[in-house]
């Protein structure tokens, strides 16, 4: 049996790190439990180095199940960077919250990250299923990690029930595709489906089931009910992790299955994504307007953002490879920018909440007077999420509009433009609160260096990216399997 260990190196390394952090934490005295953070941080840095070492290579191992190409490597980089940012935010959060066990927290995040690295390379239904579960199971525990807080328990329960239900439905879809083609490898499935005309009804049903599974992960419309409750009840860094890393992993799986495995059936799934994308963004934006709590606002906004990233799949084509390349490019570009602006916004909310203990939008009144740097950074993230220049978010939206118009999806582009306008209401309302309104409390908001660093890096990246979008553009262009 041939195994290319070079291709598996980042995953093997991360497995060692995760097991190591867990074991070391078991034998540490109580007062030294903070050691888990530096260990996990250095471990992910080492993994990132191993991933960067694979850049530009094309390796296949484990009988075609595991592939290292540019697409996989770029997503692995995104996952590692997002995890590092979330770790930096977590450190500040965990030091305040005595209820959260450090070792378990970082161990679970590392195992979830391991699943994400694996899914980027998986080219087989079995591997994709195992990787998705490896992402979800630790995430369920993370959502409920504040054991004695009943809201955290509830967040975990809702997340878990939606998660396992969608997994079971997705598995049924996978089993149908196995029955149709006799293969689980995506390339073999694609070959098995080519030219078949006798399978319309079953294939349609199977695609629907598959979309349920991935729709849950990316929080697309009828499967998004868990999102606001889970984000609100879970620790905020966990919410950031779910909304950035876990959602990106869902998109990675979706791309691989839809384009590599079911590319032949694009005519069947194209309209589904168009409808789901439109409904998701409209729902997210309309409900977000009424929110009074910052985390729930960010949760609904992240649902809307998922909608923006789903509509390009609504113009995909079974035959036009260049168009599919453009679609993947635009969504990858959006995901790259999204990783920084979303993590940044959650980090800023953590910084505000941990000092003041307040999570309502009203409480942000007069933040500019209290902590100008924090207010400016938060405004940058919100502008970017809304798609207002000069921050990188406008470029990401622009790329998606361009794809939609090139793919003859003018209607989709118009609806998305309307949604962007609606979204400005609630993003700008928060900015107005921070800069125009006054508050009685004028105490500055202090934050530890790791948190300030995470916010600073995210803010710098989206500002520089807004002026020099080619930096993101080149990375996203490389991330393609066609």
């Amino acid at each position: 049996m041939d195994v290319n260990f070079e291709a598996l190196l980042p995953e093997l390394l991360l497995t060692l790190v995760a097991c190591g952090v867990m074991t070391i934490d078991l034998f540490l005295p109580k007062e030294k439990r903070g050691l888990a953070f530096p260990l996990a941080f250095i471990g992910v840095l080492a993994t990132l180095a191993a991933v960067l070492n694979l850049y530009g290579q094309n390796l296949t191992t484990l009988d075609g199940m595991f592939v290292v190409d540019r697409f996989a490597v770029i997503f692995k980089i995104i996952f590692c960077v997002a995890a590092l940012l979330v770790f930096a935010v977590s450190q500040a959060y965990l030091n305040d919250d005595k209820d959260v066990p450090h070792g378990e927290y970082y161990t679970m995040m590392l195992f979830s990250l391991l699943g994400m690295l694996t899914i980027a390379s998986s080219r087989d239904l079995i591997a994709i299923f195992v990787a998705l579960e490896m992402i979800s199971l630790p995430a369920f525990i993370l959502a409920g990690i504040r054991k004695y807080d009943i809201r955290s328990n509830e967040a975990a329960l809702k997340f878990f029930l939606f998660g396992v239900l969608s997994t079971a439905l997705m598995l049924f879809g996978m089993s149908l595709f196995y029955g149709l083609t006799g293969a689980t490898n995506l390339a073999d499935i694609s070959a098995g489906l080519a030219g078949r005309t006798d399978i319309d009804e079953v294939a349609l049903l199977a695609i629907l089931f598959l979309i349920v599974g991935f729709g849950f992960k990316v929080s697309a419309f009828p499967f998004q009910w868990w999102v606001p409750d889970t984000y609100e009840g879970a620790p905020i860094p966990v919410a950031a992790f779910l909304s950035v890393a876990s959602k990106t992993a869902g998109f990675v799986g979706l791309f691989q299955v839809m384009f590599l495995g079911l590319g032949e059936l694009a005519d069947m799934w194209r309209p589904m994504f168009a409808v789901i994308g439109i409904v998701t963004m409209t729902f997210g934006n309309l409900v977000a307007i009424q929110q009074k709590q910052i985390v729930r606002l960010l949760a609904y906004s992240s649902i809307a953002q998922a909608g923006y990233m789903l509509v390009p799949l609504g113009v995909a084509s079974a035959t036009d490879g260049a168009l599919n390349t453009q679609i993947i490019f635009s969504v990858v570009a959006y995901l790259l920018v999204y990783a920084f602006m979303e993590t940044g916004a959650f980090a800023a909310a953590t910084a505000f909440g941990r000092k003041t203990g307040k999570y309502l939008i009203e409480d942000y009144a007069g933040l500019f007077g209290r902590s100008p740097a924090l207010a400016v950074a938060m405004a940058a993230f919100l502008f970017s999420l809304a798609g207002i220049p000069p921050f990188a978010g406008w470029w990401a939206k622009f790329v998606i509009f361009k794809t939609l118009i090139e793919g003859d999806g003018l209607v989709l582009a118009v609806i998305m433009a309307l949604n962007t306008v609606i979204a400005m209401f609630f993003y700008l309302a928060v900015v107005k609160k921070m800069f125009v309104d006054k508050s009685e409390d004028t105490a500055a908001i202090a934050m530890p260096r790791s948190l300030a660093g995470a916010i600073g890096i995210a803010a710098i990246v989206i500002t520089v990216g807004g002026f020099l979008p080619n930096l993101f553009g080149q990375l996203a262009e490389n991330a393609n399997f066609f």
Partner: protein
Amino acid sequence: MPLNWVLVLTTFLFCVGVYGVLARRNAVIVLMSIEIMLNAVNLNLIAFNGALEGDRLIGQVFALFVIAIAAAELGVGLAIVLLIYRNSFTVSLDEVNLLKW
């Protein structure tokens, strides 16, 4: 045995599971219903494997992975239900309703 008979059985089992998840209010019974759904998937995979290919065993391998991961899933799920029971003395999903809109 013809493949269609097995498929009818698995579809029926799967629907029983879905009904249980959607209609029952006891968290433990919901977990059991999810197990039924996953077992329907397993039967599906094994039936396809038997009908499709003699000596390649992809479907059975897939079923093994589903069994193992279903156990892990159930472990996490029961742990969460236990946690809720300890904190609020209920396993009824209707009473877990602090967070809304």
